[in-house]
């Protein structure tokens, strides 16, 4: 593979599910047998992107946006309805086995370990399935035991592990054959901050040391902030943002938030200085944001206080969560880097 060939290339990717429709009851079942009806569900509409080797890219979007479906096509589990996928130059579905040797996948909600086997036995089996050279396997096992703190877990079967232990074990299992491309579908779901930190550190380390390409799906933007320099945001099966994390920050970072607690609910529309707008309002709370290049906090505060009795107010820096909320909310034309 040439140096500048992308690790992952996706172009006009599309996946439509046909969901069988059935009327209730026996009659419905019989009818469905003879004249099946289907509802179409476009899970991935038209997605294109490419990932260079060694990059960690965050792949985010609201529930049902099509993230997992994309990953299933990238791993070869699902065949695309249309469009092209290349992973390390291969079609992952048509060359499923060759592709499988080079990739690792974590589906955060499921385990790939054997429920009843001690972790070390599971790892032995996986190493044999991937034909990891025994000496190399030993080295890696030692390394992973150290970085993922597997020590006392090795003798434990998965069924006796806590969620955090399970995920550490899962990562070891996914990376034991040193895949060049790794897909992590919600690897930190349900974990506490300490374990999240460990897992992020491990992913970072693997990426740095081996140049592993990583596609990371998550609802935890902390993962993104810590790991990804690039983010792809998708919505309803389409890419709505693809660019550096820094650009999102810059574009949306120019907004600051200001929240007021008022004595009475707001009754009539506010007159605000240019660049300021109301973004949220409930009972006696009023959320505004303003463009700091066009207005200052004191201008906004003064304007509001002149029209309402204010009990308290606070200023906030925009965090990634609120930025992304805005993008999900439809501010995409502004978010797209030009």
């Amino acid at each position, binding site marked *: 593979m040439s140096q500048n060939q992308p690790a992952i290339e996706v172009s006009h990717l599309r996946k439509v599910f046909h969901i069988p429709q059935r009327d209730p009851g026996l009659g419905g079942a019989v009818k469905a047998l003879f004249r099946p009806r289907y509802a179409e569900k476009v899970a991935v509409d038209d997605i294109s992107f490419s990932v260079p080797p060694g990059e960690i890219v965050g792949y985010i979007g609201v529930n049902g946006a099509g993230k997992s479906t994309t990953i*299933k096509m990238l*791993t070869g589990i699902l065949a695309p309805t249309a469009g092209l996928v290349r992973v390390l130059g291969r079609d992952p579905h048509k060359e499923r086995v060759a592709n499988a040797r080079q990739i690792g996948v974590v589906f955060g909600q*499921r385990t790939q370990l*054997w429920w009843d*086997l001690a972790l070390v036995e599971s790892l032995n089996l996986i190493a044999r*399935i991937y034909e990891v050279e025994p000496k190399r396997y030993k080295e890696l096992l030692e390394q992973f035991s150290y970085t993922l703190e597997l020590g006392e877990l090795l003798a434990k079967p998965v069924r006796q592990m806590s969620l955090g232990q399970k995920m550490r074990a899962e990562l070891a299992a996914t990376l034991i054959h040193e895949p060049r491309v790794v897909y992590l579908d919600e690897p930190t779901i349900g974990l506490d901050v300490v374990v999240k930190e460990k897992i992020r550190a491990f992913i970072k380390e693997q990426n740095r040391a081996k140049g592993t390409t990583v596609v990371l799906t998550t609802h935890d933007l902390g993962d993104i902030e810590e790991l990804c320099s690039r983010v792809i945001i998708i919505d309803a099966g389409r890419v709505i943002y693809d660019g550096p994390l820094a650009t999102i920050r810059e574009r949306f970072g120019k907004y600051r938030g200001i929240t007021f607690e008022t004595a009475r609910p707001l009754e009539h529309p506010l007159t605000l200085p240019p660049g300021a707008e109301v973004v949220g309002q409930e009972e006696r709370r009023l959320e505004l944001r303003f463009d700091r290049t066009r207005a200052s906090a004191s201008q906004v505060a003064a304007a509001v206080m002149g029209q309402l009795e204010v009990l308290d107010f606070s200023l906030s820096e925009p965090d990634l969560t609120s930025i992304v909320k805005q993008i999900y909310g439809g501010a995409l034309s502004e978010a797209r880097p030009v």
Partner: protein
Amino acid sequence: MARYASLYGLFLLQRFKVLLEYRLNFLIGASSTVFVQAAGIATLWVVMRQVPSLNGWSFDELLLVYGLLTASRSIEHMFADNLWTIGRQYIRSGGFDRFLVRPIDPLFHLLADRFNHDGIGNFVIGTLLVVSAWASLGIPLLPLYVLYAVLAVLSGGAIFIALNLLTATTAFWIVESVPVTRAVHEMHEFAKYPLSMYHKGIQAALTWLIPYGFASFYPASYLLGRDVGWLVWAGPAVALVLLLVAYRFWLFGLRHYSGTGS
């Protein structure tokens, strides 16, 4: 091939480690089948005390039929039990996807994933029944006969597995495939007795459609020197064709799965 054989060995080894951990479970599982079988044989024995021969077959001859079928079925029970629960345990939960991201054949992975020790009891009983019937019927211990019997049990096992593979593949469409598998599998009950005692239609069905007859009646007839024609030699070919058909259907189902997901 060698790689798969050694992988299977490793799967098996791990499985037995787990079973040893649940020693009691293992013993209960492997011996519970003994009781089930004992009940079946007792029934046969009670019936045979009333009528000394069933359609011209003596008790020992019936035991040979029964034993061959039991041994055949135990092969499926031991090595392919996961076909029963593919929908419930792998497809519904999405666990099947795991097989598809590994660099080995997904069907091999599915089967190797769980060797079922409960089948061991059946295997032992089936073999014992065949051996004891063999002895009491005075069937000569010729290498040809022994080889024939071994091949018959293997072909019978393959027929059991192929039929379950055919029916289990429906899980790719309907997920819960157990009722379909059971409906076909239960037909093997007929094959516990000589086919010659049934109506022609049932005989044909158990020979050409759901050919469990090749796991019991036909090989038993050969060993007993009963003339049922060339069909006594057809078992391995039937098994092979059925396996091929079932595997093609499996691949077709797999393609459907990659279109629809779990």
